[in-house]
């Protein structure tokens, strides 16, 4: 808009409001000095300070000034716009002027929290306030457009969190797409035997939920699939899902396993992913008996036909329903959804990264997840604890904090390991009557019934040694150590270094973010913490929201969590997604671009630049025109236009140049 139009709103009368944020800002920024400075800036009618501008009395200051002093532009110098821009826009509107006659100066995250010198901080705060004051004079009234919300939801990840979120939303009538990377849903919980602290059977509580997912009329389950692209915005996402070929027609397979029996490999030969290699599978296989969907798949890396092109393909003949399809190709499905729940979970820490613990070197050193399979009644040994050397252990050491609370690997506590170590100690002790030692740094058992479970274990006669294990080695000092794994540890309660010989070692591995968390976060346009966990919008008050509206997170992809916490978050994410959908519409930021018809020369430079095909050429007027409903406000056309005919609401050239001048004039 030109400056003549801006004058139709009358001379700008700007109110500047500086927030102390308790002492968050006031400690580093000289507020009095800043107020005096603001009063001297052009068009500023009033400059005030308040302890908490976001509080009701703070907001009322703005409203009162608009009404009584005729303030028609508002600048608040406080925190990040991500935090309180909506708050102050609302206050501006309540005062009776258009909410976009508002500009925020971030003097907390950009100034007081990151500047050590008070003089420097005050100087920078002044520059930012000057920029905001100069800019807001050129603000124009804008309206937000309302866009209807697509009522379908995408859930990514089929572990317990994803399952819970999908079922909750499907039960309330939403159409849910559940996309899982692995051939079956169930996640890590499907591998556990018992769950702490109640010791109820994991399968008994999980498998009914898995079959509900499969049977639910409102859920479309795509396993062995990955989201490869997300377009659009809150309420209207367009999602591309890659469906990997399993070489089986999913709609025909009933999971009878006859093809598996008929495979020319008479015996299973290849490491079984579900059992972490503790058992073997064939190239055509069912991941585990309760796999959902109950559909087999062929692994092209081990299948003779895929490797050599020569095989009798006995599997094809064995299938009465003709479900085997060696020509199946990868397929991309496109779906429209209004909201997305990410529940992509975690990756267990690779214990081989700590060489002194001997994982993958000594066969009787196991990771805790391998033990989950060994103690599982449906595991490779039918629940009997038999070591790789075929013997039953008479003594077992459980090492806590492997890959957790360690500067060399991960500094954070993985939260679940103390409790699952106690559970494994109980199960191993119960089944083998072995002497079981827990080596811990601190026992962390905060949860309902958790401390009581710890007490119970101590009464069961499980040993607890406080100290981080230094190393696990196979060199004996005494006759009784020969042939054993020797755990060397400083027992910090009695103040001596101990050598404890055991038959079997369990390494309680921590939880890590997925190796490709960075790629996934990019697809969904959300943020990661530096450890790779997906970042929540606010750690306390918006724990399942992200900085991208309409995308929610649940479960261990946000940070290590046990099952109860995952389920609670999944419920929270589901209800947030449903609240968004049930509102029926979203209000869009009016940051769309427009063409000033009198300036446009019709050169068509902008048209191919637009990634959303929102610009078309009007033949009779010989100008370009932007369709505001298609425009996403990326600003590419604005930058490309040689005659500055393309402009963007909230980012006009005048607004940006004024802001820059404001900041630079002061400096």
């Amino acid at each position, binding site marked *: 808009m030109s400056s003549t139009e801006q004058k139709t709103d009358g001379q700008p009368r700007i109110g500047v409001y500086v927030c102390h944020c308790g002492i968050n800002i006031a400690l580093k920024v000289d507020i009095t000095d800043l107020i005096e400075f603001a009063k001297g800036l052009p068009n500023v009618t009033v400059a005030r300070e308040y302890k908490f501008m976001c509080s009701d009395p703070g907001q009322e200051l703005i409203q009162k000034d608009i009404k009584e002093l005729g303030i028609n532009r508002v600048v608040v110098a406080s925190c990040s716009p991500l935090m309180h821009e909506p708050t102050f826009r609302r206050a501006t509107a309540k005062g009776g002027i258009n909410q976009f006659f508002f500009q925020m100066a971030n003097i907390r995250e950009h100034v007081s929290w990151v500047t050590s010198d008070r003089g420097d901080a005050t100087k920078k705060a002044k520059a930012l306030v000057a920029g905001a004051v100069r800019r807001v004079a050129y603000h124009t009234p804008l309206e937000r457009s309302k866009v209807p919300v697509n009522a379908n939801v995408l859930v990514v990840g089929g572990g317990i969190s994803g399952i819970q979120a999908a079922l909750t939303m499907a039960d309330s009538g939403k159409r849910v797409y559940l996309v899982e990377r692995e051939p079956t849903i169930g996640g890590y919980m499907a591998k556990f035997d018992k769950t702490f602290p109640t010791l109820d059977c994991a399968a008994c509580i999980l498998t009914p939920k898995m079959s509900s997912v499969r049977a639910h009329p409102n859920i479309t389950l795509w396993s062995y699939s990955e989201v490869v692209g997300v377009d659009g915005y809150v309420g209207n996402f367009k999602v591309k899902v890659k469906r990997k070929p399993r070489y089986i027609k999913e709609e025909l397979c009933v999971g009878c396993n006859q093809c598996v029996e008929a495979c020319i490999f008479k015996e299973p030969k290849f490491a079984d992913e579900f059992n972490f290699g503790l058992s073997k599978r064939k190239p055509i296989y069912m991941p585990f008996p309760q796999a959902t969907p109950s559909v087999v798949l062929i692994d092209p890396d081990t299948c003779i036909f895929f490797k050599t092109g020569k095989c009798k393909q006995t599997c094809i003949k064995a299938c009465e329903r003709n479900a085997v399809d060696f020509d199946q190709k990868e397929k991309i499905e496109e779906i429209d959804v209004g909201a997305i729940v990410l529940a992509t979970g975690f990756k267990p820490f690779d214990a081989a990264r700590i060489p002194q613990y001997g994982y993958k070197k000594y066969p009787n050193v196991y990771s805790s997840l391998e033990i989950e399979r060994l103690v599982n009644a449906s595991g490779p040994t039918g629940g009997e604890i038999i070591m790789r050397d075929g013997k039953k252990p008479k003594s077992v050491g459980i090492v806590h904090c492997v890959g957790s609370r360690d500067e060399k690997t991960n500094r954070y506590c993985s939260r679940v390991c103390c409790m699952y170590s106690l559970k494994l100690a109980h199960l191993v002790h119960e089944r083998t009557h072995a002497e079981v030692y827990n080596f811990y740094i601190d026992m962390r058992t905060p949860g309902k019934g958790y401390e009581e479970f710890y007490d119970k274990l101590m009464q069961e006669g499980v040993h607890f040694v406080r100290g981080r294990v230094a190393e696990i*080695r*196979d060199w004996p000092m005494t006759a009784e150590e020969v042939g054993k794994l020797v755990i060397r540890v400083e027992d910090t309660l009695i103040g001596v270094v101990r050598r404890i010989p055991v038959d079997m070692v369990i390494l309680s591995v921590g939880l890590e973010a997925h190796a490709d968390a960075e790629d996934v976060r990019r697809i969904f346009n959300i943020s990661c913490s530096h450890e790779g966990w997906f970042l929540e919008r606010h750690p306390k008050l918006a724990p399942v929201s992200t900085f991208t509206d309409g995308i929610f997170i649940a479960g261990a992809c946000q940070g290590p969590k046990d099952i109860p916490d995952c389920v609670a978050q999944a419920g929270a994410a589901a209800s947030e997604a449903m609240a968004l959908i049930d509102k029926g519409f979203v209000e869009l930021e009016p940051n769309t671009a427009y063409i000033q018809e009198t300036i446009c020369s019709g050169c068509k430079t902008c048209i191919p630049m637009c990634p959303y095909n929102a610009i078309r050429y009007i033949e009779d007027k010989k100008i370009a025109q932007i369709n505001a409903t298609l425009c996403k406000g990326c600003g590419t056309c604005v930058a490309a236009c040689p005659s500055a005919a393309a402009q963007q609401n909230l980012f006009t050239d005048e607004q940006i140049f004024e802001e820059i001048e404001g900041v630079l004039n002061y400096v």
Partner: protein
Amino acid sequence: MNYIYYPGCSLKGTGRAYEESFLAIAGALGLAIEELNDWNCCGATTYMGIDEKKAFAMAARNLALSEEQAPDDKPVNFLALCSACYLVHLKAQTMMDENPNLKATIIGALANAQLSYQGRVKIRHPLDVLVNDAGIDKIKSLVVKPLKGLKVACHYGCLVVRPYATFDDQNNPTSMDRLIQALGAETIEWPLKTRCCGGTLMGTIPDVGSRLNYILLKEAKRRGADVVATACPLCQFNLECFQNQISSLYGEPIHLPVAYFSQLMGISYGISNRQLGMQRLFVPLQPSLAV
């Protein structure tokens, strides 16, 4: 690449065989090595135990001298063969980098001696130089007498990768193993490779020192080693010189040759025993080489 070689006290005394053999194989490999002029004690043990700052000042003088000796502005490769010398110089440099007050004090002390320290010194361990600068392929190419059938326990000692692991894994270093394997020998699986040899405890609390050496020697023998290879004059001394006492103390014959890795390299390169200082070993290596 040029290296300024810092011998320290051991390499001119009890560890002479290390100096002799290392300079011989370095010559064979064509490494340009020049001894640091007017070097002084690195500051290990005695100074370090009483006043770290004095130890750092001693080490810093050596670093300053090395910069003076390599006057162009390129990085100076400061080669310390003894593990303690290597660590003390590295520690002094790291502490100065991390602590500006300490650095100012030490720079001041150097200025009093008309010296300056710019910080362009890179402190290098011989295993690092051999494996990463010369390279395993080059090391292998000079072998004329492969050490076939010789089983070697590679002992890195405590200081080479701790607390600073600049070129190898802190818990499971492998550079010496790779080097020895390149000579045609076999290295045994040796989880004690970074365990303490007792350091000065052999002189101060012999009970403790003897036990530490007993563990190392006994386990090396149990795993079938013919020789322990070491990269530290103190480890070599402790492991080799008290074997009779240890044997009678534990009622178990513990006799095992302990040689510098550079001596094993020299043998495989066909360098004469005398040039490698083989005659200085108390437990002769020759019988094990005859395997």
